[in-house]
């Protein structure tokens, strides 16, 4: 692949109530077929998308949170979560789903996809991207 670009999908909204979170996830899964270098960022209320134990029964909406665990199968394994956004909502890494991927270059060892980064680190990561899509 000669023209691999760095794609970053930014998720800023709570998972339900608007269609943004699900739409972003679908775009990521579709885009993964094109074998680009894909990263995801979760900040502001977007961090709620990754919280474990989601139950949408009362909302009458499909709980799509299990789908984030499939991202590893799609070779999407750089998932950055902003530390300040977690803290402001009383959340820690332990409150999030343990998203994993298998590292092809390391004998399929299972590794964590989520990396908690500070706002300053996030700014640097964003700086390195070719394409940034915000949801």
């Amino acid at each position, binding site marked *: 692949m000669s023209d691999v670009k760095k794609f970053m999908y930014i998720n800023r909204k709570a998972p339900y109530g608007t269609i943004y979170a699900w739409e972003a996830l*679908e775009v990521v*899964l*579709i*885009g*993964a*077929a094109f074998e680009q270098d894909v990263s995801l960022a979760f900040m502001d209320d977007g961090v709620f998308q990754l919280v474990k134990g989601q139950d949408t029964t009362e909302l009458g909406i*499909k*709980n*799509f949170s*299990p*789908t984030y*665990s*499939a991202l590893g*199968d*799609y070779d999407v394994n750089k998932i950055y979560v902003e530390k300040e956004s977690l803290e402001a909502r009383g959340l820690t890494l332990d409150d999030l789903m343990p998203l994993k991927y298998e590292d092809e270059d390391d004998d399929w060892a299972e590794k964590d996809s989520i990396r908690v980064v500070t706002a300053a680190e996030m700014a640097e990561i964003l700086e390195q991207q070719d394409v940034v899509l915000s949801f």
Partner: protein
Amino acid sequence: MPIEVEGKTIETDEEGYLANLNDWTPAVAEAMAKEDGTELTDAHWEVINFLREYYDEYQIAPAVRVLTKAIGKKLGKEKGNSKYLYELFPYGPGKQACKYAGLPKPTGCV
């Protein structure tokens, strides 16, 4: 276009995918395959059952690349390749096998 299975009428969309995923039974898969002129063998069922388990866990139908890789891991290398899967499902393993499995068309399926 609705299909008739064991005396029941089951709704499908214009491409033949189930309108309501809960309507699925193995007989539905058999009926869909028959319409396409396909006889379902154990090899077909392995893939169909795998897709149903995948959907149950992740709530999506996997892209064909993901399906191929995962089948290879679960059922053996000789099955985790496009040639094997296309021989079973000549209309495309993603589209055809997902249809028989009662799942929606795979996300990102082109």
